[in-house]
């Protein structure tokens, strides 16, 4: 298995630009005097606040309780006093109720933070502990992990994939974690496999991270049912559907979930957090963030308390080295451009990029010349040029016929387009319109 490189159809090869931070060990970021903790950092319903201004909170204390099954609680990432609970903009762009805590600098541990007896926990208790720890997918989607670990009974999961592809350029948070804490990742994977009763575990890593591959291989050397697999370095190798296809040859049916083909995929950082949550009882209150780009003076991999402002981290990395053109939350292919640095790090943020004008190249948009490169690179085999053209005309029904809803928004089409057309943007517009229309149709039917 070690000789063959696993891959998928389509994709692009952007310069990976990992050299800025790939050799920089994870450093602890300064803990700020104020943290801003949004009550929705995940896919799903926002949390109910459990605290009010003036309350004392301790490190690891739950301050927002999940509402409904697809939701995830949030916790205090410092100890101190709640200053306010107020709507604030998150890096995702929307305004969310946010708990602002003034740090007392003591890191007084909450009583609920207690090690669990991993070996004697029931599967139910494990799921509960993962839910209570507020663990969500750390790869970027922030989907609540306990939901992923509760597939419908009729779906048998035979294979768990840990995603260490980290195919987004610049980002090295997972890379460093695999080098520095491989055992935690493997222990986390074993917990996931136990909860899902899966027989095989894969840890999938792109071949541009040989150090991570050898660290992980060493960590699994005594595990008979866990394998480290090397993937071809190609974007979006770390996309769930592409990863599943590359490793198992299975295709998740259109509109379906990985569980439909007996697979669950989790990020390596998520696995490490699962282990931490059980081993120490500490909920998800910090994560590794890569601060990188040509526009930052000292790029770093930082272990950051959730709720730390982007501006604090940029300052810790020496500030700007040039007039930046874009600040990105996440990677350059799918990340979100920020208009302000006064936004907090939330659970889904794996990177903060300060890009120079040279890196972002603001280019003129030309008409489509129908070269078909977007079709060639689309990992889903869509026809981005057609969906985009119909979307621009407002013909969203035809967009739907062209399977716009299957778009994974990886951005390969926009990246490769010689005419520099914002293809994925117009496809996302079409998706939103289609979904909105569907919702209104359904509610009409209900009446």
């Amino acid at each position, binding site marked *: 298995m070690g000789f063959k490189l696993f891959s998928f159809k389509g994709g*692009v090869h*952007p310069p990976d630009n990992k050299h800025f931070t790939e050799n920089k060990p994870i450093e602890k970021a300064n803990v700020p005097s104020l943290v801003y903790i949004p009550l929705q950092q995940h896919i799903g319903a926002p949390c109910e606040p459990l605290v009010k201004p003036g309350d004392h909170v301790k490190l690891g204390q739950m301050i927002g309780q999940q509402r409904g099954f697809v939701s995830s609680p949030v916790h205090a990432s410092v100890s101190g006093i709640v200053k306010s609970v107020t709507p604030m903009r998150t890096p995702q762009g929307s305004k969310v109720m946010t708990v602002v805590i003034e740090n007392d600098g003591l890191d007084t541990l909450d009583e609920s933070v207690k090690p669990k007896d991993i070996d004697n926990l029931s599967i139910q208790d494990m799921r509960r502990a993962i839910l209570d720890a507020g663990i969500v997918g750390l790869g970027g989607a922030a989907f609540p992990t306990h939901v992923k670990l509760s597939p419908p009974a009729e779906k048998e999961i035979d294979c768990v994939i840990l995603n260490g592809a980290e195919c987004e*350029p610049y980002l090295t948070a997972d890379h460093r974690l695999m080098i520095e804490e491989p055992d935690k990742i493997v222990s986390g994977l074993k917990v996931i496999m136990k909860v899902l009763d899966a027989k095989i575990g894969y840890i999938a890593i792109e071949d541009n991270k040989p150090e991570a591959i050898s660290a992980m291989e060493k960590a699994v050397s005594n595990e008979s049912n866990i394998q480290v697999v090397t993937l071809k370095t190609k974007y979006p190798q770390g996309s769930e*559907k592409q990863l599943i296809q590359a490793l198992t040859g299975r*295709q*998740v*049916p*259109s*509109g379906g979930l990985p569980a439909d083909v007996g697979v669950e995929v989790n990020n390596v950082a998520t696995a490490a957090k699962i282990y931490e949550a059980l081993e120490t009882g500490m909920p998800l209150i910090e994560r590794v963030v890569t601060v990188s780009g040509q526009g930052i003076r000292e790029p770093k991999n930082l272990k950051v308390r959730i709720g730390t402002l982007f501006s604090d981290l940029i300052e810790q990395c020496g500030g*700007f080295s040039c*007039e*930046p*053109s*874009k*600040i*990105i939350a996440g990677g*350059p*292919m*799918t*990340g*979100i*451009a*920020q*208009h302000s*640095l006064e936004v907090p790090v939330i659970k889904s943020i794996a990177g903060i*990029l300060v*890009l120079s004008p040279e*890196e*972002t*190249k*603001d280019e003129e948009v*030309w*008409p*489509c*010349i*129908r*070269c*078909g*490169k977007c*079709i060639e690179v689309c*990992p*889903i*085999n*869509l*026809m981005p*040029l057609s969906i985009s053209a119909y979307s621009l005309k407002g013909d969203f029904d035809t967009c739907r016929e062209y*399977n716009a809803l*299957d778009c994974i*928004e990886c951005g390969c089409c*926009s*990246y*490769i*387009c*010689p*005419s*520099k057309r*914002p293809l*994925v*943007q117009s496809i*996302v517009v079409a998706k939103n319109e289609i979904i909105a229309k569907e919702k209104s149709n359904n509610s009409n039917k209900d009446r």
Partner: protein
Amino acid sequence: MNNTYTVSSSPHITSNESVSRIMLDVIIALIPAAIAAVYFFGWRSALVIVVSVISSVAAEAIYQKLMKKPVTIKDLSAVVTGILLAYNLPPTIPLWIVVIGAVIAIVLVKQIFGGIGQNFMNPALAARAILLAAWPVEMTDWQSPVIDGVSAATSSATSSATIDGVSSATSGATPLAILKSGGVWAELPPLWDVFIGKIGGCIGEISALALLLGAAYLLFRRVISWRIPITYIATVGLLTWVFGNDGLFTGHGLYHIFSGGLILGAFFMATDYPTSPVTPKGQIIMGIGCGIITTVIRLAGGYPGGVSYSILIMNVATPLIERYTRPRIYGEVRGNA
């Protein structure tokens, strides 16, 4: 930190691909054929190419100025159209016809339909078809290769081949014409001459060797895919081998491949982005369709332009082909998509 930052949708980085780079690649790929043309036909062919390029670019710029549209000549697409138009003209063509051809290609076929990417027919080929109808004599005045000044003598009676088997008034039978009348090997110029381009014909079509060099570059640069040209050429080769002579399986497939405008058409014209299918399956249908029509015109038809007309016909079928060849998507559920 009172900077302002650009906020836009992802992705935030782009590749180095550009329209002008693609066009430049096509121009580079067309250079060997131009060298071959000058070598075999003399400097007049270079003059035709230059006049064609200048008038194409000027036509685009003037039209866009008059229509108060942004002038887009820096995308180099008009240069490509100019070169391809010249390549489809005989070297003796009067220069004023070249200018008219360029105006037809750029204004009538390309700009009126919305400019780059919007034309539904290949501009150079559509212009050639119109010129052929308007000035049939000038458009088929084939010149023999002038290599060494004596080539006409060395290649004897078969000194000129035309784009698709029509001989001019001034020369004898062409390879394709001979093939059509029964294929006596002795009367044909050696296949090697046909391959390197020591034959009569349009400026850019004669040297299969030079064109294949350029084609290899385009394939290497991934500007074009193999699908259209290879299926096109294979179809012509196969069908002319099977049906190209009195008995089945006795035709001269290789001759048909290397004479006329097939190599130029297959690699440089049938692959034209706006007028050929973008879907992989559609490209194969395009290639096979062009091959069948070309063969039918060559073997059963009596007029020039087998390659040109087959490509033009498939151009107009392109939207239809695309509609029925949408690729199967990842995880597509049958009967549900």
